[in-house]
C-alpha cells in the first residue's frame, strides 16, 4: 500500500500493512501479549474511541508498563515527603535537584538495571551507568560522581562469579571512560539474589543555579531534534521485560542486548552541555526505557503539548525497522530535544562539531496529540494525556506474609566463646570483607574533587571554588527489610543520615531505588507499602526529602522473590572540607568513645544480624529497633564533633556491631586499640542502631563527652588507640587479635571468595 492509497492519514485499525510492511493485526490477544490486561485494553479502546494501530499498541503498552507508569507504586510513593528548604526540583523530572548554596545546585538520581544485568552483566551494568548519567546531564548538570549499589546472590550460585565480574567491569568501564568518578556504593551478597541480581546506579551532577534544564516540550512550532547514536533493534520491549518476572518465556522473548558506547556518551555529554549554553534549547531528555516513545510522550506531557514526529527521519543503524520498532528501541546514547524555532542551526552546529548526528524529526504542536508518521502514513495518533498522566493506577491488595510471625520469632543467640575468632570469621566473609577489589576497578579520583573516596562511611567531593563538600552514601540492609520492611525502610534512611554525619555532612535530600518482587502478589505489595511507610517516617523525622527515585518490581524467578531492597542514596553538604574526620584511627594514644545506647544484657539486638546469619546460619527475629529521635540526636552530635574538629576519626556501627566497627577503624593505618567494656563477648556483635565510635586526642575527651551530654547522646570512653592488636577486656577476660592478621583476612576476603 503506498502513501497515496492510505486513507487520508487517518488510522485504520485493521491496517496490517503499513508503508508496505506487514504488521500483526491488533487483537485482544496481541494486547495481552504486550502485557496489557483486559481492563487496560478496554481503557485504551475507550481513550482512543477505536482500535489502536500496531504502533499505538506498542507505545501505549510500553508507557503503561509498570516500569514506565509506576501504576502499582504511585499511591504509596505519595507518602514520601518531597519538599524541603533545599529542594529545587522534586520527583517528576529526569533527576531531583537540591541547593548546594552559593551559585551551585546538585542534580541526582538512582536507577535500577536489574533485569538486563542478569541477562548480560557487563552490558547491563554499563548501560545502567550510561542511562543514569544521561538523566543527570539532561538537567544541564555536569556529572561529577557515580555510586553503584550491587546485590548479588551466594557466590556459589550458578553464574554468580561471572555476574559479579561482569557487573563490576561494566560499571567500571563505562564510568571510567566517560570520566566520572565512581566514589561509593554498596555491595551485598545474599541468596535471595541468586536468581535476580540487583544493579542500582546513582549519578550526581552539578550545575549553576540559573542553568538548569527541564524536559518540558513547550512552544508549538519548535522543532524536535534527535541527537546521538543511531537507532537499532536494541532492547525493544525492555520496559515490558522489566515489568515481568523471569521465566521460560522471557528467555525466548529476549530482545537484542543493548550495548553501551561510553565514548559516544562522553561526546554526547560534552556536546549537550555546550549546546545548552547556546540558549537555543527549550527542553531536553534522554531516550531511556521505552526509548523514543517514553521520551517524546513524557516531554509532551510535562509541556502540556503535543507533537508530530516523522519517523522516516530517525537515523537508523540497520534497515528494516518499522515505526513500532523505532518508537520502542532502547538503543543507547540518544537524546531528544526541543530547540527554539529559527535557532536550531546554532544547536545543530555544536553537535556537528563534536561529530554527532543531529536530525530534526518533528515539531511541538498545540492540542495534546502525538501524531507519528512513517512512509507518508499516519501510524499513530494518540492523546498524550490519556497515555501518560491518565495511565492506569492500582491500589493492589496487600497482605502480611503468612510466615512473618514465625520469621520474627526471637532467635536463640549462641554465645561467642572467643570474640576474636568470631570477628575473624565475620571479616573473612565476602559480606563483611573489604570491597576494595571492586572499587579499585573504578576510577574514583578523576576530576580531582574526591576528598574521600570509596571505603569509608560516605564519600566527599570538593565543590571547587568553595570550601564545602558534597557527601554521598548508599545504604540498605535487605535482611532487616525482609524481617520487618517498615523498620528496614526506616533503618536505611537512618543509616544513610548517620554515614553522612560521620563526615560532618548535613543531609540535603535522597533518591531511592525500590527493588521488590511481583506487586501482583499481596505479600510483595505489603512489603512495599511497609518499606515506603518506614522510609517516609524516617525522612520526616530526620528531615530528608525524597527528590527522585525509581521502582523496580518483578525481581523474582519462579515464585522466589528478592529480599525487599529499598536502596537509599543520600546527598549531604560538608560545610568545611578542611576539618574532615577520618573513617579510621589516626594516631596512637587517642581516646575512643562509644556513642549511643548499647542495650543491656538480655536485650541485645541480634535479629537479622550478621553474627547470626553468617556464623550460625540463622536469619530471623525482629531487626534492631530504629529510634528516630535518637538517630537525629546522634547525627547532630556527629556533625558537631566533625565540624569543630574535636573528632579525629568517626565511624558508625552497622553490620557486625561494635567488634566489626572497631576492626574497620584499625585497618587503614594498621593501628590497634585497647578497649574495655561491660559487655559479653557475644554482645560485641549486637546491631543496635544509633551508635557510632569517636576517636579524639586525649585533650579533647572532655569536650566530646560534654558535647554528647548536651546533645542527649549516651557516651562512654571505652579505651584508646595504639599497639598492633585489637584487644578487648570484657568483664575481666582479655581477648586480642593482631591488626595485621585481621587486615589480611578482611582485605583478601572478596577475591578469595571469587576464587581469583
Amino acid at each position, binding site marked *: 500500500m503506498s502513501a497515496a492509497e492510505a486513507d487520508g492519514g487517518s488510522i485504520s485499525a485493521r491496517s496490517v500493512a503499513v508503508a508496505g510492511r506487514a504488521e500483526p493485526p491488533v487483537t485482544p490477544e496481541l494486547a495481552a501479549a504486550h502485557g496489557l490486561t483486559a481492563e487496560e485494553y478496554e481503557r485504551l479502546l475507550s481513550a482512543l474511541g477505536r482500535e489502536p494501530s500496531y504502533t499505538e499498541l506498542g507505545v501505549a503498552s510500553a508507557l503503561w508498563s509498570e516500569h514506565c507508569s509506576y501504576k502499582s507504586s504511585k499511591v504509596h510513593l505519595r507518602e514520601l515527603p518531597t519538599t524541603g528548604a533545599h529542594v529545587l526540583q522534586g520527583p517528576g523530572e529526569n533527576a531531583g535537584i537540591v541547593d548546594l548554596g552559593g551559585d551551585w545546585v546538585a542534580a541526582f538520581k538512582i536507577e535500577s538495571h536489574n533485569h538486563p544485568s542478569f*541477562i548480560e552483566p557487563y552490558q547491563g551494568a554499563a548501560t545502567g551507568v550510561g542511562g543514569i548519567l544521561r538523566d543527570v546531564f539532561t538537567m544541564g548538570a555536569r556529572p561529577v560522581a557515580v555510586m553503584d549499589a550491587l546485590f548479588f546472590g551466594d557466590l556459589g550460585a550458578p553464574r554468580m562469579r561471572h555476574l559479579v565480574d561482569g557487573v563490576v567491569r561494566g560499571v567500571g568501564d563505562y564510568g571510567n571512560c566517560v570520566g566520572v568518578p565512581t566514589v561509593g556504593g554498596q555491595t551485598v551478597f545474599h541468596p535471595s539474589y541468586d536468581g535476580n541480581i540487583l544493579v542500582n546506579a546513582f549519578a550526581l551532577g552539578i550545575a549553576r543555579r540559573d542553568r538548569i534544564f527541564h524536559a518540558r516540550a513547550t512552544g508549538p512550532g519548535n522543532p524536535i531534534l534527535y541527537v546521538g547514536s543511531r537507532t537499532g533493534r536494541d532492547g525493544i520491549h525492555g520496559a515490558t521485560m522489566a515489568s515481568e518476572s523471569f521465566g521460560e518465556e522471557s528467555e525466548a522473548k529476549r530482545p537484542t542486548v543493548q550495548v553501551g558506547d561510553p*565514548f559516544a556518551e562522553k561526546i554526547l555529554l560534552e556536546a549537550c552541555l555546550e549546546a545548552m549554553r547556546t540558549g537555543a534549547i527549550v527542553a531536553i531528555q534522554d531516550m531511556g526505557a521505552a526509548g523514543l516513545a517514553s521520551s517524546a510522550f513524557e516531554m509532551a506531557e510535562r509541556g502540556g503539548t503535543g507533537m508530530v514526529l516523522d519517523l522516516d527521519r530517525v537515523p537508523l543503524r540497520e534497515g528494516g525497522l518499522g515505526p513500532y520498532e523505532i518508537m520502542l528501541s532502547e538503543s543507547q546514547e540518544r537524546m531528544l530535544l526541543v530547540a527554539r524555532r529559527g535557532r536550531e542551526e546554532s544547536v545543530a552546529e555544536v553537535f556537528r562539531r563534536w561529530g554527532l548526528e543531529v536530525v530534526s524529526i518533528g515539531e511541538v504542536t498545540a492540542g495534546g496529540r502525538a501524531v507519528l508518521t512513517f512512509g507518508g502514513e499516519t501510524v499513530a495518533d494518540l492523546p498524550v494525556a490519556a497515555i501518560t498522566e491518565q495511565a492506569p493506577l492500582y491500589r493492589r491488595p496487600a497482605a502480611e506474609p503468612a510466615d512473618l510471625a514465625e520469621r520474627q520469632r526471637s532467635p536463640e543467640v549462641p554465645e561467642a566463646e572467643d570474640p576474636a575468632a568470631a570477628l575473624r570469621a565475620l571479616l573473612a566473609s565476602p559480606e563483611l570483607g573489604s570491597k576494595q577489589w571492586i572499587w579499585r576497578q573504578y576510577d574514583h579520583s578523576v576530576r580531582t574533587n574526591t576528598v574521600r573516596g570509596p571505603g569509608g562511611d560516605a564519600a566527599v567531593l570538593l565543590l571547587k571554588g568553595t570550601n564545602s563538600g558534597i557527601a554521598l552514601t548508599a545504604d540498605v540492609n535487605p535482611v532487616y527489610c525482609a524481617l520487618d520492611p517498615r523498620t528496614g525502610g526506616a533503618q536505611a534512611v537512618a543509616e544513610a543520615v548517620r554515614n553522612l554525619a560521620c563526615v560532618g555532612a548535613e543531609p540535603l535530600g535522597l533518591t531511592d531505588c525500590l527493588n521488590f518482587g511481583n506487586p501482583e502478589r499481596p505479600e510483595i505489595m505489603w512489603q512495599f507499602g511497609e518499606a515506603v511507610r518506614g522510609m517516609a517516617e524516617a525522612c520526616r523525622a530526620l528531615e530528608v526529602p525524597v527528590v527522585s527515585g525509581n521502582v523496580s518490581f518483578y525481581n523474582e524467578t519462579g515464585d522466589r522473590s528478592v529480599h525487599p531492597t529499598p536502596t537509599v542514596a543520600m546527598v549531604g553538604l560538608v560545610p568545611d572540607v578542611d576539618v574532615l574526620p577520618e573513617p579510621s584511627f589516626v594516631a596512637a594514644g587517642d581516646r575512643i568513645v562509644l556513642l549511643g545506647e548499647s542495650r543491656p544484657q538480655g536485650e541485645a539486638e541480634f535479629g537479622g544480624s550478621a553474627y547470626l546469619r553468617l556464623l550460625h546460619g540463622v536469619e530471623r527475629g525482629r531487626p534492631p529497633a530504629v529510634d528516630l529521635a535518637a538517630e537525629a540526636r546522634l547525627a547532630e552530635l556527629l556533625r558537631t564533633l566533625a565540624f569543630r574538629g574535636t573528632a579525629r576519626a568517626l565511624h558508625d556501627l552497622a553490620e557486625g556491631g561494635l567488634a566489626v566497627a572497631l576492626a574497620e577503624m584499625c585497618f587503614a593505618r594498621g593501628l590497634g586499640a585497647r578497649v574495655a567494656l561491660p559487655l559479653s563477648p557475644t554482645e560485641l556483635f549486637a546491631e543496635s542502631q544509633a551508635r557510632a565510635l569517636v576517636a579524639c586526642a586525649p585533650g579533647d575527651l572532655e569536650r566530646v563527652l560534654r558535647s554528647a551530654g548536651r546533645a542527649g547522646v549516651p557516651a562512654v570512653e571505652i579505651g584508646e588507640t595504639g599497639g598492633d592488636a585489637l584487644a578487648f577486656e570484657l568483664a575481666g577476660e582479655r581477648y586480642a587479635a593482631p591488626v595485621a592478621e585481621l587486615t589480611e583476612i578482611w582485605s583478601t576476603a572478596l577475591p578469595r571468595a571469587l576464587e581469583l
Partner: protein
Amino acid sequence: MKATVTVYPRREILDPQGKAIREALGRIGFTGVEDVRAGKSFEIELAGEDREAAGRVLEEMCRKLLANPVVEDYSIDLGGRAGAGGAP
C-alpha cells in the same frame, strides 16, 4: 593441533569498536571503507590429533568461556593452516 577461534559481536548488535575504527580510517584518508567489525581471535594449541574430538572440545570452550553467546557469535577453524572462519 592448532585451531583458531574467531569471535565477533552478533550482527544485529551495536559494535562501537568497529564503528570507531571505520571512522578513524575515514579521517586519515581511507575512503571506500564500507564497514568494519571488530572481533577477537584465539589461537589454541591442543594436545592430541583427533580433529573431531578437538572440534567438540572447542565448541564447548566457545560456549563456556571464549564467547558470550548472548552478544557474540563464534567460529572454529581447524583447517590445515590456522585460518579462522571469520564472522559466521
